[in-house]
């Protein structure tokens, strides 16, 4: 029987049980990461692949399976004699994996490998993805980047157009639109590029290309506005686009207002932060939702 005398103890036990359950869950992500890292670090290739496959069996739903796929593929392609096995592994994964993001990342992995051994085969593979049902937004963005960098601007443009088709948020659409606009501009299709970049102005990088085109067309105030949006989001580029000089040309009597205009643009975003739970490198858990009522600064970066 629960009475007043032992109610406190019951509540304490319930709290401890709850914390115990949470503790088990809290540790799991970190343990999974450690398990993956241990498997990836094994010296012998056969043993490494075996352990990574065990990892995949143990955690078939965990997002970190993407790293395991990539590591197995990399291990198999380290030895040119194993490339057939790498392709078989690729087919095996694509036969079962359903997450479009992970499928996309893995397709891009295959593309980069193919490019290192036979660029024609890589281009054929990329072109085949345009006709496929793949819906990985980043796949087509990455392919577009890569192909553009390698001078294949037309095919790069098609990749960005496909990225717009498969994008499922305004952010993705404006990012892909900006890239497609930039690609069209490189192909000398300035008018098409201009229309697309204006539609994609939500993306800060659209401002750089838009500012350049508008300035060249003599639409100087529009160019300044575009450059301000760009520099607001990418502060390190202020000197690169010579914003201070251009602003002084267009607004010679109000050059002192530029800093305030940049700041207004910089704080003008209004997107809700979706809370999520994270474990840190020491195993401590944080839930971003717990910080409502406090300002946050979150920096996403890749130290390795």
């Amino acid at each position, binding site marked *: 029987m629960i009475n007043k005398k032992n109610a406190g103890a019951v509540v304490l036990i319930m709290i401890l049980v709850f914390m115990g359950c949470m503790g088990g869950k809290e540790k799991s992500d970190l343990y999974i990461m450690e398990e993956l*890292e241990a498997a990836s*670090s094994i010296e012998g290739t056969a043993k490494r692949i075996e352990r990574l496959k065990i990892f995949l069996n143990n955690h078939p739903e965990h997002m970190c399976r993407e790293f395991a796929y990539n590591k197995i593929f990399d291990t198999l392609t380290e030895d040119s004699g194993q490339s057939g096995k790498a392709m078989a592994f690729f087919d095996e994964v694509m036969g079962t994996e359903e997450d479009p993001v992970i499928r996309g990342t893995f397709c891009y992995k295959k593309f980069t490998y193919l490019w290192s051994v036979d660029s024609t085969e890589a281009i054929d593979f990329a072109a085949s993805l345009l006709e496929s049902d793949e819906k990985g937004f980043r796949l087509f963005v990455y392919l577009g980047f890569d192909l553009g960098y390698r001078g294949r601007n037309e095919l790069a443009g098609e990749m960005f157009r496909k990225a717009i088709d498969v994008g499922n948020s305004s952010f993705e659409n404006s990012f892909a639109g900006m890239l497609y606009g930039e690609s069209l501009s490189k192909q000398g299709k300035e008018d098409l590029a201009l229309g697309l970049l204006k539609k994609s102005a939500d993306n800060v990088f659209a401002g750089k290309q838009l500012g350049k085109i508008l300035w060249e067309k003599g639409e100087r105030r529009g160019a300044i506005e575009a450059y301000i949006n760009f520099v607001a989001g990418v502060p390190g580029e202020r000197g690169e686009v010579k914003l201070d000089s251009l602003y002084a040309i267009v607004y010679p009597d109000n050059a002192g207002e530029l800093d305030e205009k940049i700041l207004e643009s910089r704080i003008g975003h209004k997107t809700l*932060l979706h809370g999520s739970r994270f474990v840190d490198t020491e195993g401590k858990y944080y839930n971003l939702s717990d910080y409502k009522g406090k300002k946050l600064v979150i920096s996403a970066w890749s130290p390795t």
Partner: protein
Amino acid sequence: MEKLKNMEDELGFKLFLINMKGYLNKTRAILKEKNVTIPVLLDCKSYSRCVLHVNYTPTTFIIDKDGIIRSRLVGNCEGFKEIVEEVIERI
């Protein structure tokens, strides 16, 4: 970023880093070498890619007290700490 962490109490904010890549031991070694004391969150669910839509690293988000992302800054540059401080004070 460590310099920015020293301003947490004065400016009333909380600072986090999200590690977008899954190399845990290398990350720990770097944090130790550089004496980083900021909590480094592991991005096990691809939050930065799929929710925050991060395409360039580093990308820094500044969020107001209502949980609204008010600023999204790409890259790092001279004077970056002052830029972040200015935004925090204004929002």
